[in-house]
């Protein structure tokens, strides 16, 4: 396998001037073909990310973008719509120079994406772009299409893969809707593409602060020795959103919180928190260690999982409707908008150390945190020890990215009263450059062929196996929904999961 460093060495051997000039992060010439280009993801995430890459001159020197979707539109209309999106959602100032560089190489093709005729048109257009932009037959296909269109699209792309360049597929979530459909999709992909050509995106892994979790664990000698059952009492992971479902009712009604967030983002955070140190920071080494954690996750008993659905309530003082009153949602919907669980990683490091996880919509605030609670001191030495909480290391993934540590400190004055105080490290305070959007990093990595921050087939299947087991237990009873008011931290039973442990 050619690793990034050996590729750099090879580059240096060819060009003695390359060393130290950071030339290596510029990908080879390629076309990025976005299927489902008229969708919200392209507007909100993909094009703003491409603009950010263009702004920093990180796109390949020979590059083209082909937007493909059913919506009838000319290239000019597509480009105008993307310019509007970049102005609205881009993180950088809008400059004509950067935008023109991207717009000049952008094309749009209105066609069916998941049929033979449509794919023939795509293939012909891509060949034309190779000639026009010198992209040498290299392809990155970004599959942002509904799940039902995915199998046919993968099949058609496989049949038409180029022989004179490389091919990579970025596959958006949801990757299947259960273990069987995920396996089927993996089988289909494996039929025509090798695993290192498939980039299953979980945008959480592209977040700098998620990667900072690895830096925190493996670049600091003080944490790893205590990162185990001997010193840690339990871990709490929260992925909370204050938003409702927006206009995603059709998807959400089928998926629910467990497929939307728990199956992917949440379990990846569990894996990154619980994994052993990888031997290096290469795709295979990191993914091997994450997989071990996912395999070691025991199926929680039905009493250790709480599901919920929000009813009417208030967010930031404004009344909001309940889930069943959202447009497009069935009036007696049994779709969960909240899941909490007590997870156990059954291995030597974590035995008997629960991971309490919760995800949900319409919770009081948007927040993703990993709170590692250490064990209490064995003997209370000081007076009024009731005010002293155990040490908690909180990793703030979003917002206010950073790390805080709760420690005990003496209250000034007479006596020996100890209180809990927080030491805060704010990511944005120490490093005053804007954090890149996850999609920037991930799209660039896919162009470079670096799959470290993407999910491998076996990881996806382990994640689905756990979710299927939880959902199977849910089928046996009828939930009493709604069971939490919008703007609260979910059903009382979720709190009790943690309290029982205490």
């Amino acid at each position: 396998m050619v690793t990034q460093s050996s590729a750099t060495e090879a580059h240096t051997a060819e060009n003695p001037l390359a060393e130290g000039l950071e030339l290596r992060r510029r990908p080879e010439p390629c076309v990025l073909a976005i299927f489902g280009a008229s969708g919200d993801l392209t507007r909100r995430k993909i094009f703003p990310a491409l603009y950010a890459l263009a702004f920093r001159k990180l796109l390949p020197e020979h590059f083209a973008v082909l937007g493909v979707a059913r919506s009838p539109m000319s290239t000019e209309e597509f480009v105008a719509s993307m310019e509007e999106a970049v102005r609205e959602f881009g993180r950088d100032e809008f400059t004509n120079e950067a935008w023109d560089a991207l717009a000049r190489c952008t094309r749009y093709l209105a066609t069916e994406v998941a049929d033979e005729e449509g794919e023939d048109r795509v293939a012909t257009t891509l060949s034309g772009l190779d000639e026009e932009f010198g992209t040498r037959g290299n392809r990155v296909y970004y599959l942002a299409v509904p799940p039902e269109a995915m199998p046919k699209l993968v099949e058609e792309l496989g049949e038409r893969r180029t022989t004179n360049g490389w091919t990579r597929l970025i596959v958006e979530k949801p990757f299947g809707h259960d273990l069987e459909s995920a396996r089927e999709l993996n089988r289909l992909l494996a039929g025509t593409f090798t695993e290192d050509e498939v980039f299953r995106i979980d945008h959480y892994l592209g977040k700098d602060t998620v990667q900072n979790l690895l830096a925190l664990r493996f670049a600091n000698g003080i944490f790893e020795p205590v990162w185990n059952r001997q010193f840690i009492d339990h871990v709490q992971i929260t992925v909370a959103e204050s938003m409702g479902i927006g206009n995603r009712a059709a998807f959400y009604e089928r998926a629910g919180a467990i497929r939307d967030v728990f199956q992917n983002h949440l379990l990846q955070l569990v894996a990154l928190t619980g994994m052993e140190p990888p031997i290096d920071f290469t795709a295979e080494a990191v993914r091997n260690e994450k997989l071990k954690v996912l395999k070691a996750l025991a199926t929680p008993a039905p009493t250790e999982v709480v599901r919920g659905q929000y009813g009417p309530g208030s967010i930031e003082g404004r009344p909001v409707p309940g889930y069943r009153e959202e447009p497009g949602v069935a009036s007696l919907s049994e779709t969960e908008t909240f899941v909490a669980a007590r997870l156990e990683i059954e291995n030597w490091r974590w035995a008997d150390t629960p991971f309490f996880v919760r995800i949900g919509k319409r919770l009081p605030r948007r927040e993703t945190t990993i709170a590692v609670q250490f064990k209490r001191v064995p003997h209370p030495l000081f007076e009024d020890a009731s005010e002293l909480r155990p040490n908690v290391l909180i990793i703030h993934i979003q917002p206010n990215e950073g790390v805080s540590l709760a420690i005990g400190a003496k209250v000034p004055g007479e006596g020996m009263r100890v209180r809990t105080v927080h030491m805060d490290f704010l990511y944005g305070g120490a490093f005053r450059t804007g954090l890149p959007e996850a999609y920037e990093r991930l799209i660039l990595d896919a162009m470079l062929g670096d799959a470290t921050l993407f999910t491998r087939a076996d990881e996806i299947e382990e994640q689905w196996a756990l979710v299927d087991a939880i959902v199977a237990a849910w089928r046996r009873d009828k939930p009493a929904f709604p069971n939490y008011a919008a703007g609260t931290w979910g059903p009382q039973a979720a709190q009790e999961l943690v309290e029982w442990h205490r």
Partner: protein
Amino acid sequence: MAPVAHVEEWIDECATIAEIEAALVDLRYRHSHGGEPDLRTSVLTHLAWVPPEWQEAAAETLAGLGERHPSRTLLLFPQADEQDELAARVSLECYELPGIERHLCSEVIELRLHGARAEAPASIAVPLLLPDLPVFLRWRGRPDFGSPVFGQLADIVDRLVVDSAEWPDVPAAYRELVELFDRVAVSDIAWRRTLPWRRGLAHAWPELPDRLTGPPAETALVAGWLDSRAGIEVELERADTLPVGGDRKPSDLLSDELDVFVRDPVYESSVRKLAGRP
């Protein structure tokens, strides 16, 4: 850049280290939000040796730097006079952070080293360095590499930042600079300035020009680089401006150097070539 929320200041014409330290703590607590003081997040100590003729340029470069690199900045101004005093101005520049009430503060300590104090700057700087964080020394102008003052400061820092474009005697001065490489990591802003130029040449490889035109330090460094990397010798022609990338602000260039923590072997071999050392 984030707006400056407030600047707190303490001045003493005859200060001690203890008073300066007390002033830093006091300034942090002057503003608080709900009982919580402003945040101090530091990634390094930035030490600068600024002879009088460089004072204005140094102030210009430092503007906004604290916001980009939260740090303690220690500016040492040697004063050639008869007094034997330490005059201090301690300030806290606090910036707003999006979504957070508390402000992020950078500390700037300006010290005027009068008389004999200017002969022993390390003894003044060492107690004020942030513990366990890298120390960068920006030396304005041409250092007297053999002087005790330079030696003292070079020995207490992790990285020396110079700008050889400020030196009147390049490339001859590089012969003295190479002697430092095994003692302290060296950054040269003139080298940083040539980065777009070198990138352009690397992209053009193997189609290279046989003549380089630009300011003396930068052209010398690029010539040394071509020679050390590819054994190519080129002619040099003097001009006031660089062919590419000469428009970056001094503070941006210094800011880039403050992100570098390791020795730069490519730079070192280029300078060695210029100095005629293996």
